[in-house]
């Protein structure tokens, strides 16, 4: 190693590798995966359950790293993402690629060794979907990017369920549909108040391409089937009244906020308070509805 060279390249700090995995996004992924696993009718051994959740987290981290590897140029153009390790110049792209691929391979191998084939295949599908379908194919091409790409984030409860049971039935599919339909109102609420950022980066988010009016209507339209999916497990007999009541109350609040956003028109220099409120509430919504699923299972 050269000691006195002015061109010494700093190796990335381990914290930058951690940042590459998008830990905040991972929280929701891990939580929904854990709830899917705990809501399954078959109990799983705590060590195997921990391993399954670890694999989901590592898989999500790998997908996040590969997303940042591919989107370094986009991230550099947006205020929200410019401080990430790649656009900030704290890491080279090759390290990010190797880290992402290695982590993905490791998470899949561990899932197969410790859990089962079904969970491994769904985890592989979610990583590949996020990287190839969402990041590489859709994100820069169509305003439907987060609608179709949302499927990648909807897989974790299905993986958790499959880890416990070894298969996939109607209930995990409902949970998949719930997150899939939740994604557009969640991201479009965000896109409404960071529209300029997306426009500057050339990302064809719906508010940039189709305008605010259409986006607001679409938020309202996606909310309706989403709340039906959230409510469905109770009348279909998959859960009890605890889940049903909590899901109904939370869905009612979500609908009220979504309608407020849908019928609104922003003014110049608008603080976008209802949109920010809907975005924050949508995260809380998913945490509480999935948490209710587990509580309901415990009391059943």
């Amino acid at each position, binding site marked *: *190693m050269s000691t006195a060279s*002015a061109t010494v390249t700093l190796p990335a700090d381990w914290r930058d590798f951690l940042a590459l995995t998008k830990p905040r996004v991972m929280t929701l992924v891990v939580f929904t995966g854990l709830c899917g696993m705990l809501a399954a009718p078959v109990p799983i051994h705590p060590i195997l359950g921990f391993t399954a959740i670890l694999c989901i987290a590592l898989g999500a981290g790998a997908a996040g790293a590969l997303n940042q590897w591919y989107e370094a140029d986009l991230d550099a153009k947006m205020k929200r993402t410019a401080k990430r390790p790649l656009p900030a110049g704290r890491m080279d792209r090759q390290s990010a690629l190797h880290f992402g691929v290695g982590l993905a391979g490791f998470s899949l191998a561990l899932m197969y060794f410790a859990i089962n084939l079904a969970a491994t295949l769904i985890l592989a599908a979610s990583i590949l979907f996020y990287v190839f379908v969402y990041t590489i194919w859709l994100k820069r091409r169509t305003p439907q990017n987060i609608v179709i790409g949302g499927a990648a984030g909807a897989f974790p409860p299905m993986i958790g369920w499959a880890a416990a049971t070894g298969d996939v039935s109607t209930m995990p599919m409902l949970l998949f549909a719930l997150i899939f339909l939740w994604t557009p109102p969640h991201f479009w609420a965000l896109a409404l108040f960071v529209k300029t950022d997306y426009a500057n980066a050339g990302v064809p988010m719906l508010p940039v391409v189709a305008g605010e009016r259409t986006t607001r209507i679409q938020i309202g339209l996606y909310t309706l089937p989403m709340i039906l999916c959230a409510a469905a497990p109770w009348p279909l007999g998959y859960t009890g009244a605890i889940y049903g009541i909590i899901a109904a109350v939370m869905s009612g609040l979500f609908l009220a906020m979504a309608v407020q956003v849908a019928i609104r028109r922003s003014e110049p220099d608008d603080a976008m308070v209802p949109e920010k409120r809907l975005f924050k509430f949508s995260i809380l919504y998913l945490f509480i509805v999935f948490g209710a699923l587990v509580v309901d299972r415990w009391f059943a």
Partner: protein
Amino acid sequence: MTDDLIKTPPTPIDEAELVRARQRSRAVVMAVLLGLFVVLVFAISIVKIQLGHGG
């Protein structure tokens, strides 16, 4: 503002030291993770044997 006043270009020796510090901290993190991985694989193996699908 104060940063600008105290910021001086790093000397090559500073940089080499920083590289070594980074490598050291990465090696420590990697060693801890590998240790935890060994424990996890051991625990998984015991559980699988107990459950009767050791394969």
